[in-house]
């Protein structure tokens, strides 16, 4: 029925159809159903393309805002992390200059943090 059968099978079908009234009736039913399905109505919506385009433009706007926010966040994070890392390095250097070592064992002894910070600033001032 869809003209997609190979020639041989089509011939077989035609012969079977001629021979059987039952098959003819079935074919008639199927064609009727197919025609009724084909004729199904559908309704187009007014300003459909405009509505879709508006939604897409809106989406693009939101996406852009999101990307801008993500970029700003990354930039701020980079700056904060760089300065944080620099401070950490400076503290470490100060600690090394005041104590002469970076051994972790030094922390096991009663470690006076206020004194350590004082030493760091003193070292920075001297240099």
């Amino acid at each position: 029925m869809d003209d997609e059968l190979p020639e041989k099978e089509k011939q077989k079908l035609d012969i079977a159809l001629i021979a059987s009234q039952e098959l003819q009736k079935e074919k008639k039913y199927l064609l009727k159903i197919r025609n009724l399905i084909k004729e199904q109505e559908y309704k187009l919506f007014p300003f459909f393309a405009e509505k879709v385009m508006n939604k897409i433009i809106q989406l693009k706007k939101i996406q852009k805002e999101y990307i801008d926010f993500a970029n700003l966040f990354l930039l701020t994070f980079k700056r904060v992390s760089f300065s944080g890392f620099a401070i950490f390095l400076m503290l470490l250097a100060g600690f090394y200059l005041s104590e002469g070592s970076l051994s972790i064992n030094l922390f096991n002894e009663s470690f006076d943090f206020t004194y350590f910070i004082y030493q760091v600033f003193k070292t920075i001032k001297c240099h």
Partner: protein
Amino acid sequence: MKEYPGINDIELIKLVKEGEMPALTALILRYEKQVVKTVTGMLGKCREVDDISQETFIRFYQSLHNFKCQSGVGTYITRIAINLSLNEIKKRKKKNFLFSKNDDDNILQIPDTNLSQHLEKNDLKEIVNKAVQLLEPKYRSVIVLKLIDGYSTKEVTEILEIKKSSVLTRLSRAQEKLRVKLETFLEE
């Protein structure tokens, strides 16, 4: 509105990728009818058809970078429409299950008509439409693509991503189910 006559779909897609949005409007205008037809076939006449059809084109735009020009634009858009419709059917099923809707809707009823003993063609169309809506989604999709949209078996295999034999089996079973459901209405 620019319609780009003489420019084929692939060229239009290239233009959209380059940022020329009117080219997208032209594509929407080209395929709007087909998408609405497919979605109406899958969901029946209801207010969700507009939303799903719009969503189809939005998804199409969002997935343009995935689009390989091997398959036709129409086939690609129809695939999106079918998948979104299937999702909507699943949602409806869940909703019906939660609110335990009774199964009266699953029975085909003759519309009230006292005009004549024979059903009018429009009534018959309505009954056939209802019968299609009562088919399982996997059968419904094949019926919609093959009989409403008029796609070839090969195209249906591409859209549904199933084997040719499965398409033919589903089509045959769907038609059989429809025949059984509609037998009493179609007898002359």
